[in-house]
């Protein structure tokens, strides 16, 4: 049964009810990026990067075209076949090799080499011409020339190899890696060959990207610099390394705004690396890249990698680089820099597969519409400022009644209440006599509450936007969103991530969002609704009166 629609704008639509859905989606993800996954039709997009990623893993353009022709419902636009051939043929035309300590740019095609030599942006990086097909380049320009060439539409296959870095024995303790995690590690490591050692592992939220990173560290046994998004995440990495490897605590350093430790394994934030006094000053913390002889650099959430870090990454191309992410799509469109400086996609695993195997929990999303009380409604109509209207609707006091009903529906279930406004959260905290975690709380106090929650001593936690970042609350089965910016996909993904981890019992999680009916908040919540359905989650909209029906919610 034909189940693909290939469009001229390079998108591919896949009908999910096809009996061959699993195989087809798996093959599609080798050469295209998954854009959205609503229930019935999933959208993929072919980009130059996605095609080069495919080429780098050995797939041929004719295989892709044959595959598309086999499964397409309608005729494939000619333009697409031509583009696939053109872009995929470009990968591998240029490569960087190393002989006797010298770097060489080699082209399979002398005409292309000729064109490249004419390019003003490339000329500064080329040294002497060896022959019509190759030129020598300076070691320090390995990253920059790749960056420029990809801009010209020519990706470079970098097989110049890596420096080993300072050795550090890293043994995994009693950890059982899942199959896909082992596959991901091997796809990156490639038996230590030059063709591996740099690139991206793309795994959904909750699939254990951290453990995969640690697995790679244990393969390479070298000093490692880990870059991540925030302090909470730094602590999470540290905790994971300590519990899952034999690396002693004294060998692990945190490099953040508060602490500046440089140890054999150092975990730093992007924020500190890009910190500078003002625009005229240098990024002094970038020195961290040179402070030790790193054998591996891990870029956590690589889609958030800031531009200055790219520049520094261009200078350390002889070091192995691992990017971890749930998505290849960057808000700033710098996917090409990620490809040329960190490396091509090495591994991808779809979240539906994770859900199928029970490695992440099934999540049902509910939007519950809550009325405003008559007096607040009057107030709402009198306000003209749209932001104030939104806030008033977000802080709708009637939401407490609904929270109460939801908590009754899920007794003894680890539950998070997540919100944007401290006053509202304090009120909820007081009402339910539950602890509140905000940015004001010290790390130690937070850790204490997290531990209590993990151990099941605390059943209900109220959290502010600190929950937007990578905190680890393993057993939350219910999340109730009472307010939010609702414009940020990142925020929604992180909040959803709180309930994704697998559950011991039925592996079912519930994600509720309370929205004031017929208000600005309802209008804004459409964005988050779209985000969730595009991710493929079941999304239900209910009136507050409907939540008394327990069966409805637990079905």
């Amino acid at each position, binding site marked *: 049964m034909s189940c693909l*629609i290939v469009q001229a704008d390079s998108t591919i639509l896949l009908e999910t009810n096809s009996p061959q859905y699993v195989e087809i989606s798996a093959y599609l993800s080798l050469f295209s990026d998954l854009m959205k996954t609503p229930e019935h039709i999933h959208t993929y997009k072919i980009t130059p990067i996605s095609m080069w990623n495919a080429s780098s893993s050995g797939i041929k353009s004719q295989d892709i075209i044959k595959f598309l022709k086999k499964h397409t419902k309608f005729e494939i636009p000619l333009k697409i076949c031509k583009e696939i051939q053109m872009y995929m043929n470009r990968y591998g035309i240029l490569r960087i090799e190393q002989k006797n300590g010298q770097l060489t740019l080699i082209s399979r095609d002398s005409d292309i080499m000729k064109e490249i030599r004419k390019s003003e942006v490339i000329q500064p990086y080329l040294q002497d011409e060896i022959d019509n097909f190759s030129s020598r380049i300076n070691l320090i320009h390995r990253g920059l020339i790749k960056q420029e060439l990809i801009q010209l539409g020519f990706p470079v296959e970098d097989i110049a190899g890596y420096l080993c870095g300072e050795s550090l024995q890293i043994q995994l303790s009693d950890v059982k890696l899942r199959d896909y995690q082992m596959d991901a590690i091997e796809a990156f490591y490639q038996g230590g060959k030059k063709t591996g050692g740099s690139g991206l592992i793309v795994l959904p939220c909750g699939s254990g990207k951290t453990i995969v990173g640690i697995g790679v560290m244990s393969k390479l046994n070298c000093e490692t610099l880990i870059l991540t998004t925030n302090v909470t995440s730094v602590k999470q990495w540290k905790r994971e390394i300590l519990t899952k490897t034999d690396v002693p605590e004294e060998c692990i350093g945190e490099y953040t705004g508060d602490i500046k430790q440089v140890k054999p394994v150092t975990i730093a934030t992007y924020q500190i690396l890009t910190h500078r006094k003002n625009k005229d000053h240098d990024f002094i913390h970038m020195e961290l890249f040179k402070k030790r002889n790193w054998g591996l650099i891990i870029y956590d959430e690589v889609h958030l990698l800031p531009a200055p870090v790219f520049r520094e990454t261009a200078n350390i191309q002889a070091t192995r680089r691992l990017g971890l992410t749930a998505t290849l799509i960057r808000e700033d469109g710098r996917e090409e820099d990620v490809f040329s400086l960190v490396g091509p996609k090495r591994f991808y695993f779809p979240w539906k597969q994770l859900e199928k195997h029970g490695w992440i929990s099934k999540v049902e999303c509910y939007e519950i519409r809550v009325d405003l009380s008559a007096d607040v409604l009057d107030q709402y109509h009198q306000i003209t400022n749209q932001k104030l209207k939104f806030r008033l609707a977000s802080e709708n006091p009637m939401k407490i009644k609904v929270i109460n009903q939801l908590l009754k529906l899920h007794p003894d279930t680890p539950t998070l209440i997540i919100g944007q406004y401290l006053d509202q959260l304090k009120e909820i905290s007081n009402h339910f006599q539950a602890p509140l975690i905000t940015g004001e709380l010290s790390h130690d106090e937070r850790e204490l509450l997290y531990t209590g929650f993990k151990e099941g001593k605390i059943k209900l936690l109220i959290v502010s936007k600190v929950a937007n970042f990578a905190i680890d609350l393993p057993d939350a089965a219910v999340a109730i969103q009472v307010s939010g910016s609702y414009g940020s996909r990142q925020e929604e993904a992180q909040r959803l991530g709180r309930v994704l981890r697998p559950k011991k019992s039925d592996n079912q999680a519930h994600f509720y969002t309370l929205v004031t009916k017929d208000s600005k908040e309802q209008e804004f919540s459409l964005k988050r609704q779209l985000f969730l359905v595009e991710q493929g989650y079941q999304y239900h909209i209910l009136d507050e009166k409907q939540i008394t029906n327990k069966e409805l919610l637990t079905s």
Partner: protein
Amino acid sequence: MNCEKYLSQLPQSYLREIQTQSTYEKLMKHGHDLKDCLTSPQLLAECYEKLNYIEKHTLSWLIRNVGYEPFEWKHIISLVEDQLSKAELKMGLTLLRQKGIVFTFRKTWGEHIYVIPKDAFHAWVKVLLPEIKHVSCIGDEVVQPLDRLGRGLIFDLFQLMIYIAKNEVSLTQDKMIKKRQLQKMCNLLDINEDDLQFIDLKYMGQDFYPKAFVLVYDLLLRLKLAEQKSKHVELNKDKIHGWLVQNSCQMNKILYEVWHQICMPNQVWLQLIWAKMETISYDMWYPIQELVNWIEDSQLMSCYGIEKKQCFNQLLNSMKVFVGFGWIQLGKTDNNEMVFKWKMNLNSTAKPLEHDEIQFYIQADYEVLVPSNVPFHIRWELESMSEMTNSDVIMHYSITKKSIKTARQNGRTTNDIIEFLNKYSKYGLPDNVKKSVEDWSEQVGKIVFQEVLLLRCADEKTFHQLNDNPLFQPYIITKLGEKDFIIQKNLLKELINKLEKNGYTPLFSSLKQGSEDEKVQFPSFNKTVNGSYILENAKEANGLVNSNKTMLYYEMEHKFPNIKDVYPILEEIPPIWLKQYRSYHPSTEKEIIQKAIDNHVYLKLRKNKVERMVLPQKIEEKEGDLLIHAFEKNKDITLFSHDWEEMRLIFPGINDK
């Protein structure tokens, strides 16, 4: 226009005359109707055998030299040269008119314009000219299709209709669309100026409207799907309904026919090739060079004074227009040979689609994905409640708060919307989308601007008089303050009558009685899927493009042609001159020869029982002897009086058997 259209415009008496021609007698007895006899190649082949030599020659000459272009006598007489005598041509034409093979239009001053219908022409090409070479199947694997293949003229037409339905398209005083809207409408089209670079269109607003736009807009007007009112463009609800329920195959056929009416190339050899091209199977690659070879093999190339390369290039250029329309695809084989294939099936009517084939997909993210086979009447309704976001292999629409508001404003109820989306959505309407549609729709109905009829009293006294009078109570909806009433609009006439009878003289203050320029809404055809579209005579529709088919603007000749009209002189000629060979006195011989010259007829000469037939051109007297300059078997000859003993006048069609 096709044969059926022409026949439908003839009076019954005329039709009876055609039907009683011996050519059709046998076929009619076997139950064939006249239209079949005139357009089916098989039947025409039988009819052809029954034609006399003048009819055969004239028909063959017209097919090869005039095509289905309308023509006048003065035009063909200049073309015919020595291939037929003028008398033969005139007689042949008259006989073909009698048989309904050639149709006649009458100009203002009575001059005639003649035409062979396009479908009959195509059938005659099949009968009279050799078949094109059969080419074994050229597989897709050896063809590299060329990039451009238009989305389809029917889609462009649809896009303009939708735009007009959703927006008030205003006209300037010169009846031109305003620039800003023109730009937006142009942006909706897939056809571009490059597609049309090889056609020469003359149209109203040549300096203002882009060619691609005018082509689609002209079709919209010509098909009467829209009409230019004094200040705006308005859709024709009935016609649109009829059009939308056609399937794409039917729509394309209609457009193809209209296109031929307004814009087909005038070169006869191109018409011949197109006639042959239509016989090539749908979706099969065919080498373009083979069509050129066919012209050469049919010995037509020298006749048109063209060379093979020129022929090839002109043919290719004429095809490029159809590439833009999505009707033809071009490609190149591995051997660098140019090939084409039809992307429109002219020879079949598409089967009605099953319900599951006409479904679209509604995603939970409010996106609606519409495959290309979804019929246009369903797309139309969908357009009323969604916004198109992308047009590609499939169309992408988005259901938004704004689109639901528009649907409500255009008369759809919440139920209409939900029922429609549910009916045609392959996987139903996702819950969250349904809920949002209900919410948005509900919000629309909360406040409504409504036009009411206000009855204003000059003073409170009058107000109270009316209010207290039970006679007026049935007309009052509500009171407003101390001077005004809102009254029943539909009972206005009745109320006026009663007011006047009770001594009031109501005054009308700027009350509109309905104007021609009231904007038509986005009509709904959701509940009525049956209907038909009848293509009217192009002359009745007001397009912008000036058609080169001038006869479209004239009336058909209703007087059956009479052979006597071919030779009005016949009555003045002594019958004996026609009846048999005789020797005459030189002065009579001179008179007979002069009659032959004047009437472009033949002269038969006999000497020692040897006959010869000549077409005299000039007569001379030299030293008392008569000299005739004439054509004999297409050669110039000169005859002296000793070359004949007897002579006889031959009027083709009268005494030439």
